[in-house]
C-alpha cells in the first residue's frame, strides 16, 4: 500500500448551536486516510460519525454549526479556512460523497443523466456529447445495465438498489481521489447490499481510490475495511486494523458492540449481552470517559478524567483507563467464532 496521506484530521471539534444549548457533536477527532485504503467509521446513531464525514466537505450548515478547533488537511491544504467558492472545486471533483438515503437524496424532477452531468455543467468542463459519454460510462461502471434508457429516466422509475448505484455514479463521475460513503447500504436488502459492497471494493482494487465508509453495521466493516475507527460520544474510542479491532478488542465499548450482535453463531439458548443504558447527552458531555456510565468495568477515575489514547501496536490505539499500568487486569468478553458454525 502506498503511504501517501490524502486526508489528515487533527483534533477536530465541531458543535451546533441550538435553542437547548451547544451540542458538541465532534469532540476532538484525529485520523488520516491514505491512498487506496478503505477506512471504516463505526458507531451508533448520534456518535458523531456523519458529522465528522460532512466536515470533510464542509457540508454541515454553518450556522448553526461551527468549527471549534482543529484542522482538516486534504493533500496538505487546509479545508476549514476555505470559502464556499473554493469548496466547490473540491466537492465532487476531489472528494465524492455518497449520501445515506438514496430515496430522498436524488432530485425527483431531474433525469438521472442530468443529475450525473450536473457537476460538469456548472464548470463548463466538457462539450455536451463528451458529458453524455462520461455519464453513460460511469453508469456502466457502477453496474447499471441498459444505461442508455436509464440516462433518460427519472429517479422514481428506479428501484432502491439502482438509485444507490446512481448516487455512487454521481460521486464518481468526476474521478475524485476519495469517496465518502455515509451508510450506503442501510436502507437496502441484503442481496442488493452485497452488490453495492462489491462495487465499493472494486473502487479500491481497480481504480485505486480511497474510501471512507460510515456504518453502524460491523458485518459491513468486517467485509470491506482495512482500518477501523470506533466512535462513541463524539470521540474515537478505539482504532486499529480490521483484524485488531475484531480479534484483539481492547475497548469495552467495541467489545460490547461485538457481543450484542445476534450473529449466525449464536445459539438460541444463549442470551445476547446488550450494552445497557443509552449514549451520553452531547449537550453536556461527561467530563470523564464518555462510555463510563454504561461500562461494566468503569472505575472511579473513568468518571472523573478523560483517558488518553494508549498505543497497543503502531496502528492499534484505545482510549481507555484499563490500559493504564495501575488498572486491574480485566478480560473483556471475547468473541470467538467456530468456523464450522458458518455456512
Amino acid at each position, binding site marked *: 500500500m502506498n503511504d501517501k496521506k490524502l486526508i489528515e484530521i487533527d483534533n477536530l471539534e465541531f458543535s451546533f448551536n441550538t435553542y437547548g444549548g451547544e451540542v458538541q457533536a465532534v469532540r476532538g477527532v484525529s485520523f488520516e486516510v491514505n491512498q487506496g485504503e478503505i477506512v471504516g467509521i463505526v458507531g*451508533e*446513531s448520534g456518535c458523531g460519525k456523519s458529522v465528522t464525514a460532512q466536515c470533510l466537505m464542509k457540508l454541515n450548515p454553518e450556522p448553526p454549526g461551527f468549527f471549534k478547533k482543529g484542522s482538516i488537511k486534504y493533500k496538505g491544504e487546509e479545508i476549514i479556512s476555505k470559502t464556499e467558492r473554493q469548496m466547490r472545486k473540491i466537492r465532487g471533483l476531489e472528494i465524492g460523497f455518497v449520501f445515506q438515503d438514496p430515496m430522498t437524496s436524488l432530485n425527483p424532477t431531474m433525469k438521472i443523466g442530468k443529475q450525473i452531468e450536473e457537476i460538469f455543467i456548472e464548470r463548463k468542463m466538457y462539450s455536451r456529447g463528451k458529458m453524455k459519454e462520461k455519464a453513460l460510462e460511469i453508469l456502466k461502471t457502477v453496474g447499471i445495465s441498459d444505461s442508455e434508457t436509464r440516462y433518460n429516466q427519472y429517479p422514481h422509475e428506479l*428501484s*432502491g*438498489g*439502482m438509485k444507490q448505484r446512481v448516487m455512487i455514479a454521481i460521486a464518481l463521475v468526476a474521478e475524485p481521489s476519495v469517496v465518502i460513503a455515509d451508510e450506503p447500504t442501510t436502507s437496502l*436488502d*441484503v*442481496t*442488493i*447490499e*452485497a*452488490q453495492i*459492497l*462489491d462495487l465499493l471494493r472494486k473502487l479500491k482494487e481497480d481504480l485505486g481510490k480511497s474510501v471512507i465508509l460510515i456504518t*453502524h*453495521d*460491523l*458485518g*459491513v*466493516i*468486517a*467485509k470491506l475495511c482495512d482500518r477501523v475507527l470506533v466512535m462513541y460520544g463524539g470521540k474515537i474510542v478505539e482504532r486499529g486494523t*480490521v*483484524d485488531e479491532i*475484531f480479534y484483539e478488542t481492547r475497548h469495552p465499548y467495541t467489545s*460490547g*458492540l*461485538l457481543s*450484542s*450482535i*445476534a*450473529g*449466525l453463531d*449464536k445459539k*438460541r439458548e444463549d*442470551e*445476547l*449481552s*446488550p*450494552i*445497557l443504558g*443509552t449514549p451520553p447527552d452531547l449537550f453536556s458531555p461527561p467530563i470523564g470517559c464518555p462510555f463510563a456510565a454504561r461500562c461494566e468495568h468503569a472505575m472511579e477515575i473513568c468518571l472523573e478524567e478523560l483517558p488518553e489514547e494508549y498505543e497497543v501496536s503502531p496502528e492499534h490505539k484505545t482510549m481507555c483507563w484499563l490500559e493504564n499500568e495501575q488498572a486491574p487486569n480485566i478480560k473483556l468478553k471475547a468473541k470467538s*467464532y467456530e*468456523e464450522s458454525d*458458518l*455456512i
Partner: protein
Amino acid sequence: MTKENNPLMRVENLSKHFKIKEGQILKAVDDASFDIYRGETVGLVGESGCGKSTTGRCLVKLEQPTKGEVYFEDKEIYKHKYHKEYLQQQSQNIAEINPEQAKLDYTKDVQMIFQNPYSSLNPRMTVKDIVGEGIRLHHKNIKNKELEERIEYLLKDVGLSKDHISRFPHEFSGGQRQRIGIARALSVDPKFIVCDEPISALDVSVQAQVINMLKKIQKERDLTYLFIAHDLSVVKYISDKVVVMYLGNIVEKADSEDLYKNPMHPYTQALLSSIPIANPKIAKSRKRIVLEGELSSPINPKEQCRFADRCKHVMPICKENKPPLITYEENHEVACHLYKK
C-alpha cells in the same frame, strides 16, 4: 416446547391482491399457507416488497385478504364479518354473532408490534393513554387507579419505570419507544403477537436489549410470535421455524436450524450467503452467491417460478409452470423444480 395437534394460527392459501389500475393487479401475497403452533416463534423473511408485512397485516385483520382462510384457534377470522353466505349456512349462529364484537374479541387475542417506533405512537397521547387505550376498550368500567396499576406493571415488564407514565413519546429514545409499543401490545394480554420488523429501526446495542426482552416476555406469558424481519441472523436467533418468501410466494419452509444448515432453494442459498458476518477472516474468505439483477415486478406476474429470472440453475420448466411447495424432507418444504419427490 410442547406441540398440540391443532395449530394456534393456520393460514391456508392466503392471497392479497391490490388492484392498481384497470387490468393491473399487484399480487402482494399469492397462495401462502403455513401453521403456527402455540408457544413457538415463526420467522418470516424476505426482501422488501416480498409480501411479508402484508401477510402479517392480514393475520391481525388490518388487511382483508382476497382469497384464502386464516384460522385462529380453529375459527375462521374473516368469515364472521364479511361472508354473508357463510353466515347463512351456519344460520343457527347468525343471531349470536355480532361482527363488531367478534372483531373486538379477536383483537384481544392477537396484537401487533410495528416497525417504526417513531411513527407508530401518537405524539399527542401520553404513555398512559397509549398503553391504557386497549385496556379501557376491553374493561369499560375499570377504575382509574386500577388502570394505572396495570400500566405501571406493564411498564415494569418492558423495562420502563412508572415515572414515565405521564410522558409523551417525544421524550423517549427509539429503544424506549419500541418498549412502549410492546407494552401496548401486551396490555390486552394477547396470545399471539405479530412482530413486524420490531428492531430494524434501532441501534445495534439497543437491538439486543429488545430481543432479550421479547424472549423473556414470551417465556413468562407463553406467547406465540410471528417474527417478520429481513435481518436473517436475528431471525435465526429468535425463531423455531422460518418461512422464506419471494415476491408473494413462499419458497421454503423449515425448522430454523435445518434451514440455515441446509438451505435448499437457490434464493435462500443466495440470501444466506449475503448476510454480512462480523468477522473479517470469515467475511473475506466466504464464498458469496451474488444475485444478479433485482426483484422483478409483482404487478401481473407470469405463471412461472418467480425467481426464474435471477436464478442460476434456471431450467426451461421453470419458465413454464410454477413449482408447488413440496415436502422434500421431514419438516422441510421447498418450492423449486430442482427438487422432485
